[in-house]
C-alpha cells in the first residue's frame, strides 16, 4: 500500500473524505428510499403531504396488484428480448467494425472511421424522425437511391413498426461500442498478430480464437452498459409500438400513474412498486457483471 503512510499522517482529511462520501451516498440513495417507502403505503397515505418516511403495510398487496393489473410478466419479457437483442447486436457489430478498422488496411478506411465517429454526435433522439420514417418502410432509402439514377423501384413497403426488429435495430446502430473495441484492439501488440500469422491463422481464425477471448472483459463492460441502456429506452419503444402486446416494461410504467378516472389522484404507490420491479433486471445484470465490468474499463488483462 503506497498511500498508507499518507493517509495515516492526515487523519482530519481522512475523516472529511469519509463524511463527504457518506453524504454523497445518502443523497444518491434517498430518492430510491422514497420510491420504496411509497410502494409500501395505500393510495390515501401516499398522496398525503408530507408523505410518511416510514414503511407502511401494503407492500405485498401493491406489488401483486400492479403486476397483475398491468401484465408486467409479458412486458418484462418484451423488455428482456429487446435488451438482449440490442446487447448481442451491439457487441457483434462493434467487434466486427473495430476489427476491420484496426487490423486491415484499405482505401477510405479513415473516412469510414470518421463516418462512424460522427454517429456519436447523433443519438437516436436527434434523428428520431428520419429513423421512424425508415422503420416505417425499410425499402424507402433504397427506393430513393435508385430514383436518383432515374429509375422507379417497385418494392412493397417493409414495415418494422410493432416488431422486435424495429425495436432493436435502431438502438444497435451507434458507435459507442465500436470505440470501446477499437481502443482495446489498439492495445494488442503487432507481434501477437504476426505470431498468429506465422502459426497459420487467417483473419477470421485470429478474430475468433484470439481477439474474442482476449476481449472478454471488454465484452462484459459493453454488455452491461448496453443492456441497461436498452432496458431504459423509453422514447423509441413508445414511438414505434402501437400494439399493447409489443410494449416494453419501461413504457408500461407511465400507464400506471394516472388514476382510473380523470381528476382522481395518481396511483403513486403502485407506480413506485412497478418502478422498483422494472429496476430489478438491470440491477441483477450490473451485480453479476460488476467484476468483469470494472476490469474491462480500467485495465487490460495481463
Amino acid at each position, binding site marked *: 500500500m503506497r498511500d498508507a503512510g499518507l493517509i495515516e499522517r492526515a487523519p482530519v482529511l481522512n475523516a472529511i473524505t469519509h463524511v463527504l462520501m457518506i453524504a454523497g451516498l445518502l443523497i444518491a440513495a434517498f430518492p430510491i428510499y422514497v420510491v420504496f417507502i411509497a410502494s409500501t403505503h395505500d393510495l390515501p397515505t401516499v398522496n398525503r403531504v408530507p408523505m410518511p418516511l416510514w414503511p407502511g403495510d401494503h407492500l405485498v398487496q401493491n406489488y401483486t396488484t400492479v403486476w397483475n393489473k398491468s401484465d408486467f410478466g409479458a412486458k418484462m419479457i418484451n423488455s428482456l428480448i429487446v435488451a438482449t437483442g440490442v446487447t448481442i447486436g451491439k457487441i457483434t457489430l462493434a467487434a466486427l467494425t473495430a476489427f476491420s478498422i484496426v487490423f486491415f488496411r484499405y482505401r477510405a478506411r479513415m473516412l469510414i472511421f470518421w463516418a462512424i465517429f460522427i454517429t456519436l454526435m447523433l443519438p437516436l433522439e436527434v434523428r428520431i424522425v428520419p429513423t421512424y420514417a425508415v422503420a416505417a418502410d425499410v425499402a424507402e432509402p433504397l427506393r430513393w437511391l435508385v430514383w436518383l439514377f432515374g429509375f422507379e423501384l417497385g418494392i412493397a413497403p417493409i414495415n418494422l413498426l410493432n416488431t422486435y426488429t424495429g425495436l432493436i435495430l435502431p438502438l444497435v446502430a451507434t458507435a459507442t461500442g465500436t470505440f470501446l473495441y477499437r481502443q482495446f484492439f489498439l492495445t494488442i501488440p503487432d507481434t501477437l498478430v504476426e505470431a*498468429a*500469422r506465422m502459426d497459420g491463422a487467417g483473419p477470421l481464425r485470429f478474430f475468433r480464437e*484470439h481477439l474474442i477471448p482476449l476481449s472478454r472483459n471488454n465484452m462484459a463492460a459493453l454488455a452491461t452498459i448496453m443492456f441497461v441502456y436498452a432496458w431504459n429506452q423509453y422514447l423509441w419503444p413508445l414511438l414505434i409500438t402501437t400494439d399493447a402486446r409489443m410494449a416494453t416494461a419501461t413504457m408500461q410504467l407511465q400507464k400506471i400513474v394516472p388514476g382510473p378516472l380523470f381528476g382522481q389522484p395518481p396511483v403513486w404507490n403502485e407506480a413506485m412498486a412497478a418502478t422498483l420491479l422494472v429496476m430489478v433486471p438491470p440491477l441483477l445484470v450490473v451485480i453479476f457483471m460488476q467484476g468483469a465490468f470494472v476490469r474491462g474499463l480500467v485495465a487490460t488483462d495481463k
Partner: protein
Amino acid sequence: MADIAIRNVEKSYSKTAVLHGINLEIIDGEFLVILGPSGCGKSTLLRMIAGLEGITRGEIAIGGRVVNALEPRERGCAMVFQNYALYPHMTVGENIGYALKVAGLPKVERERRVAEIAQIVGLEAFLARRPSELSGGQRQRVAMGRAMIREPKVFLFDEPLSNLDAKLRVQMRLEIRRLHQRLKATSVFVTHDQIEAMSLADRIVVMNQGRIEQAGPPRQLYAEPATRFVASFLGAPAMNLLPATIVAKDRARMADGTEIALDPGRFVVEIGQAVEIGIRPEDVMIVWPGSEGAHALEVEFTEDMGSSRLIHTRLGGMEFTVLQPTAQIEAQSTLHINLPENVIHLFDARTGSRLIRAGATIGTLASAAA
C-alpha cells in the same frame, strides 16, 4: 532442402529506401546471424523472409521456391519474437500446440506432440499454466517450443535474447546452439549483440544502413574485417581506430605528429593517403621503457575485468585502450607500448574499406588472443 536465396532484394517505405539490393545465399542447415546496429534493416530482412513484410524488388526463394507471393504460413518458416509474442489467453500447452490446431491435427496427436516438445524445452511441469505465470526464460522456451512443433524448414529468430538478463541470456544462447545441433534446421538469427553473433553463428552477416558490409565465419570477420564498420562493430572492447596520413611506404603520421610504423609488404598505400589505423586492444604489446619504437602513454584510468585489465590512455590525442591479462603488469601511470606491424589493420579514411595487399594476412597475435 531449405536453403534460402535472397536475390537483389530491396525494401522501401513510400520513398524511403531501407534495404538496397541485398544478395545472400543461406546454406541448408546453416546457422546464420545477421548482425548490425538498430535501424540497419536486419529485422526488416528477417521479416521479409518470414513473409510479414512485402518485398519491394528482387526475390526470396526458400528451398528453391520463390516465396515472394506466399503467405507466411505457406513458407515453412517459424519465428521467435523478441518479446516472445505468446498468446496470453492460452495455456503453455495451447500456445505450443496452436500451429497444429490451425493445421487441423486431431487432438490426441496434438497432445502427444506438445508433450514431446515440452520435454525438449523443459516445460513438462508448466503445460497448464498461463504465460503470465512464467519467468522470462520460461516464456522464451515456450516461444521456442511453439516454433519447433511445426518442424519448420527454417527458424527465424528476431533478437530473441535481448529481453533476458545477462545470465539467462548466456544460458539460452547455449540452449539455442544445442537445439540447432539437434535439429539441423536452417536458422537465421538477428541481433545487435556481437558476442551473441560470434558465439552462435556458423556465419555472420554484418549489415549497416541497409547494405551488407561483410559476410563470413565469425573468426574471419574478427581477424580480417573488410571495412572500418565491421572492425569497430565486432569485438569488445572495440578496436582502436587512429586517423593518420601515409607519409612513407612504411610509415603513417597522426595529426599531432605521432608516427606509426607499417609493414610495407602487407599494404597497398599511396603517399599522402588519409587512412585509419586499427588495432585491437588485446594486440597491443606492453614493452620496457626505452624499447625500440615504443610509445609512452599516460594512463587515464583502468577498468578491472577480473581476468584482464582494460587500460584507457591516449595515443596521438585519440582515445586508445589496451587490454592486458591482470597478472602481467602492475597498474602504473605511464604505459610503454608497441604496435606490432603484423596485427595492424589499415582502412581508407574516405571509403572505410580495408587496404591490404592480395595474399597478405593479419598476424598471429589476434588469433592467438582468442
